[in-house]
Structures are given as C-alpha cells and as structure tokens.
C-alpha cells in the first residue's frame, strides 16, 4: 500500500507499528488519509470491464456451485417468525430438494432473537448461523446495548456476527471511536467470526470505503461487508473492487487474510458470477472460498438454482419450480 509502505512501514506487524497508527485519533486519521485515493471514473471503468468477462460452460457451472456455497441466506424483516426461519434453514441445508448434488448455502443470517431457532433447525448440517447485532441496521444505540446485543446472539448459538459501524462517527472523522467500538464488539463476539458492515451506501465515496475497510481490518474484522441491505445503493461492483483491493493490500502489509461479503442488491446469478470474476482477478484463488467471500442475499439463491438447472437440462426454468422460502 502506498500510504502504508511509504509512510514508514506503519503496518509492519513485526515492529508493532500497526498499533501505533491506532494510538490516537490524529495518528489514525493520518494513516487512513495517507492511503492512496481512488479515482472514481477509473475504478468504475475497471469494475465494468471485468463485468464483461464471458463465463460459460464448465466455468459457469463452477461459479454457480461456488456462489451457492457462498450465500448467507438472509431474512431481516420485522415480520420474521420462527416458522420463517425454520423454512429458510431447511432451504439453506438443501437448496434444491430435487437435486442432491446441489451444495448447501454458507449460513443463515437472522436477527439475534431468532438465532436459537436457526441453530436448532440447522443442527449439525455444517451451515453456519449468522446474526446481525449492534443495533442493526442503524447502529444508533449505546455501546453497552450493542455489546449486550452481540453477546445475546453469540450465547444463543451464532457463530458469525454481522455488526454495523457507527457511520455518523466515521463521517464526522471520529475514527478512533469507530475503531474502539469494533474492537469492543470483536471481544464480545468471541468465539464467533466478526463481519463488519461498512454501509457503503452511506459512506458515498470510494475513498471513504477504502478508509473504512482499513479501519475495520485494523480493528480485527474477519470479514468486511458492504451493506445492511436497508440502504441503497448496496453492493455494487466498484465498491466490491475497492474492498477487494483493501483486503489484498492488507494481506501484503500484515500477512492477515480478511474476507469480503457483498450484501444487498445482488439478485441474479449473472451478478454473482461478475462478483466472482472480480474476486478471481483482483485477489485471486485464495479468496474463492466461502471462508473468504460471501453473498448476503435472499432471492439470489433461487436464481442460482434456476441457472444451475438450466445448465443441467438445457432448458430455461421458471420460478414455480423452486421453493419460495
């Protein structure tokens, strides 16, 4: 990373200088603002260009199965019920009851109060239980409430926590506050994996997305995630590009591997495949794994299944042939 390296190897883990950057609000600001800028036009052109890759036959079959394995099947509605969550869990375990070769999804993602239901429904299937926490989606609550929210979810059996950052604090430049909050949630969430939601639609600029990505990674995120799904725009290809560049550079600087989750707005298999092309060409094969890349989605799964069936039968299928849970 230009800023990272040329600013005196601030992030070398051996020397402990990474923690120096997070020592104070001003050093953190200096570090984050020392990251190279993102040229909007150039980043969008690069993402669009990768979006024109033509993924056919064997490559498409590979991508569809991989995408299914990367889905965090999500329901985050006020109207959610245990019944809805049980149905969703069944779908995550066996997305296509007609085809035993179809892989399971990565996780089911629910609100904390429904974690226990999901845990029970998923049993030993290997499908993870993810829970949003920290006063999702706005994050507007006291830290103690956020931590309690997190602990409730973990105690109920969540092995992945999707937290939101305080966008207000981030946008007003109180980076240390954001950082310390992530660190605190990180501790409260153990042993679960922590995904940090940046809500890129509210950050607006790619420069902010890059800075927030680094901030979250430095605070110990296992994953950085685009969006809550409640704000538009959510996951877009250029945003994913910038986040992938961040995890790539973070590994170069620290040796640590952080995953990326694209959430919100990805509804078609075609979109999902474009994301996988980005992963493939920006960060490479190490991230082509459900432990490193996820899709937060609900309707995406059925489109993936439909395309998968089309590859197998040669016919276009229809929505009536897939379950609606």
């Amino acid at each position, binding site marked *: 990373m230009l800023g990272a390296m040329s600013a005196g190897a601030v992030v070398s883990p051996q020397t402990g200088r990474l923690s120096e950057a997070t020592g104070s609000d001003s050093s953190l600001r200096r570090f984050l603002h020392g990251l190279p*800028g993102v040229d909007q036009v150039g980043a969008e052109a690069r993402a669009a260009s990768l979006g024109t890759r033509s993924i056919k036959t064997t490559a498409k079959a590979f991508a569809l199965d991989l995408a299914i394995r990367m889905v965090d099947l999500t329901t985050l509605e006020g109207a959610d019920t245990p019944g809805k969550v049980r149905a969703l869990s069944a779908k995550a375990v066996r997305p296509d009851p007609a085809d035993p070769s179809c892989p399971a999804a990565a996780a089911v993602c629910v609100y904390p109060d429904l974690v226990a239901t999901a845990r029970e429904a998923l049993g030993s299937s290997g499908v993870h239980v993810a829970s949003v926490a920290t006063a999702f989606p706005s994050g507007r609550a006291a830290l103690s409430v956020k931590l309690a929210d997190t602990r409730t979810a973990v105690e109920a059996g969540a092995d992945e926590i999707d937290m939101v950052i305080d966008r207000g604090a981030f946008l007003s430049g109180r980076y240390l506050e954001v950082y310390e909050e992530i660190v605190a949630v990180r501790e409260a969430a153990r042993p679960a994996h922590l995904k940090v939601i940046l809500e890129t639609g509210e950050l607006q600029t790619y420069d902010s997305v890059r800075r927030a990505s680094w901030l979250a990674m430095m605070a110990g995120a296992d994953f950085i995630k685009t969006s809550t799904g409640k704000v538009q725009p959510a996951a877009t290809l250029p945003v994913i590009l910038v986040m992938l560049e961040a995890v790539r550079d973070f590994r170069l600087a620290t040796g640590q591997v952080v995953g990326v989750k694209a959430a919100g707005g990805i509804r078609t298999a075609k979109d999902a495949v474009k994301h996988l092309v980005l992963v493939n*060409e920006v960060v490479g094969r190490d991230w082509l794994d459900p432990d490193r890349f996820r899709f937060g989605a609900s309707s995406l799964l059925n489109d993936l299944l439909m395309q998968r069936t089309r590859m197998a039968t040669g016919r276009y299928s229809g929505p009536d042939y897939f379950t609606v849970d």
Partner: protein
Amino acid sequence: MAEVSTGSTGSTSGGFEYAPAPESRAVVDIKSSYGLFIGGEFVDPRDGRSFKTISPATEEVLAEVGDASAEDVDLAVQAARRAHTRVWATMPGRERAKYLFRIARILQERSRELAVLESLDNGKPIKESRDVDVPLAAQWFFYYAGWADKLEYAVPGTVAPAPLGVAGQVIPWNFPLLMLAWKIAPALACGNTVVLKPAETTPLSALLFAEICQQAELPAGVVNIVTGAGDTGRALVEHDDVDKVAFTGSTEVGRSIARAVAGTRKKVTLELGGKAANIVFDDAPLDEAIEGIVNGIFFNQGHVCCAGSRLLVQESVAEEVLERLKRRMTTLRVGDPLDKNTDIGAINSATQLAKIRELSEVGEREGAGRWSPPCDLPSHGFWFPPTVFTGVSQAHRIAREEIFGPVLSVLTFRTPDEAVEKANNTPFGLSAGVWSEKGSRILWAAGRLRAGVVWANTFNKFDPASPFGGYQESGYGREGGRHGLEAYLAV
C-alpha cells in the same frame, strides 16, 4: 481455422478457469476475393494482380484482395472528382448529413459483423473491436454528420466554408475501421470525396465499409477504396488531381509524404509515431494508475501510436508500482482474438513481430531488465508476451524508438521538473499521461508537456468531439472535434 487457445498468463486464477468463450465467426461472410471499390462498384484491378490477407492469429488466408496499380488509383481519383463536381460538393449540407447519419446507423446495426471481421483480419481482441473500434467508428460518423450542415459555425469568420475537393487518404493497420472513420467522416461532412487506401494487412473492414456505402445509397464515387501496399499509397499521395492528403502511419513514411507534396497545392495532415510518457506521481490514485499503465501499453497489443510506452514513475513509489504492475500483468489473458475474455491478441504481422523482437533484444543487450509473466503462446500465428523493461535510461533505444508492440520501458524521476524534462526529451510529441490526485499538478504538467494530447488519470481515451494529433515528429493537423474539420476545408 486452427484453434487458438486463450489462457491466463499466470496461475492466480486457480480453480476458476474461464472456459473458451469464442465469438462466432459465422456472423460475417468473407468472400474469397475482393475487387477495388471505385465509382460505387467493385471492380477488378486493371492488371488483375491481387494479394492475400491473413489472420495473424493463425496465418490462415482470409481472402484475396485486389492490388491497385497507379492506373487503378487514377480511375479512383477520377471517380472521386466526378462525384465531387457533379453531386457531393453541390449537395446541401443537410442532405450530406443524412447520408452520414445513415452510415452511422448501419455501422451500429452491423456492429457484430464488423467486430468479428476486424478481429480476424487484425488480430485484436474481440472485446476491443466490439467495445471500442466499432462503436467509436459509428460515433465518429454520427458526430461529423452533425457538422455537415453547420460548417459556418465551425470556422469563425467564414460564411460558407468550401471543401477542398478530392482527398487521398492512407490509413494504418492498427485500427483499420476506426482510422477509416476518422478520415472519411470529416472529409465527407465538409463536402470532399475520398479515395482511401487501407493497410495491406488489414483491408477487409474497409471493403465491408464499401458495401455499407452501397447499402446507404451513397452516390457513386463519393467513397472509393483502393487496396494495395506502399506503391498504391504512393500513387495516391502523388496523384496530381488529389487536393488533400491525409496519412496515419509511421514517421518515416510521413516524412517521405511531406517531401513528395512539397511545392504542390495539396493540403496535408499527418498522424505519425509517438513515444509517449506516462508519468506517475507519488500521490497518484495507485490502483487506477496501474490500470492506466496496463491500458496505455497493452491496449491493442501496443499497436497504438499514442501508446504510453515510457512509464515515468516517481522514485519514492517506483518499487511498489512495479510490483503491482507485474502482479496485474499476470492476470492478462493472451490468445485467441475471437475469445471474449482475451485481453491481448496477436501481433498484426510477421514483419511487426520481427521488429518488436529486434528492439526487445536490443533492450536486453543495452542492459535493461526484461520481464514477462509466464505465458503459453500459441504455436501458429504472430505472438509476443506483455513485456516490461526496468532500469531503462533515456539513452536506451527502447526509450527512444517506437516499438509499436506490448513492450513497456520503465524510467524513474525525482521531481516534477525532471519528469517533464524527460517526457519532453524525444523528437515525438503525440501524447502523454499524468497521474496525480492533485489537480494543480496535473494542469502544471499538462501545460509543460510538448504533446498534442495529455491524458490525466486516464489513458488512450478517444472521442469524436476531442481533437487528436501530435507535436513535432508525431505529425501535424488534428483529427476529431471542430478542429478536425479545418483539415478538409479551404479556410
């Protein structure tokens, strides 16, 4: 057609190997032989001579093409003269405009066909012919169509700007259809008629364009296409009844044209070689700069007169930029031009490949460090891997001569003054790139660079509204924009 494989140069893709995604060549109907397009019809050359055009990716023969002699060129110029006097120059601009709009629309409608043909004959990746060459060619006609009835606004101080007459136009092989559009659209808009000679290695899209002129019912003789090599071009340029010469190609040929037209009334524009500097400051948007460097030198296999063939990078970030550039280069996909995922296609000809090889060997001998990503090149056809030379100094031939291939020379600088000084230290002056997040620095550098086009935080951008052309030995005259009209008007 022999199979051409396309593979990633490196091994980063791992489990996600892209299956071949070839564009079907069935969409284009290539005839076994083509005549010359003179006076609205395809006619055989008088002496019956022809030559073969091949696919540089496979060396397969695509078609036989007429080899125009001086006599054929004379017939074409006569046809153009007749069309000029009898029809085109007297037609209201409004009506000329509508012909050009028609051509623009047909180019859009037949875009797939044109893209496949261009990639077959030239060797460029289909994604470039599909997304750049063909749409831009249509856009060029669309833009200049709009000028045809507005010429009095184009040149301030003129009431009714007059065309020059017959334009003799000679174009290169790197962007066959696009260069044709750059030449023909403004010429016709201004009321000139043309005789155009495409390059001998890439005549096919120009011949398909001739069919498009027929489809558009363009009056006979307004556009004439004569195929052939250097002799044909010389006959055209030196023809007494040609009023205007427009040439795009090498500086060497450009110089000989300038010599040949000396003392005549012919108006001349020349679009020649370059050795562009792409300057990366330490405050550049780095990821986008890497893309700009890659696009600058590997777009169209580096067969671009304005290619960013000299990377000037600030020393404080040089190591990091190189590391990132190399990593990025391992993801470039070299191979079958018709595969939709190919980034780098075939070198256009055996001659060009020999030249690239020769200069690359000189680079090594002169002590520069040569690097290419691991990469399986097809066994048939003409191929050269994307290549970077590091530790290059201004004295090296690879820093001074135009290689016209996928070969980048990397030099470093310490201060903005030094960057500009090195960038300008060349007899060429076509284009330059500047990468910085600081606006005032970009404008400062742009102001001092002796180049006809300066791209800031981008590279290799073209638009019909934007004038293009060089300083010094990169030629004179501008193509594109309002300025591009002046080359075809008596003003």
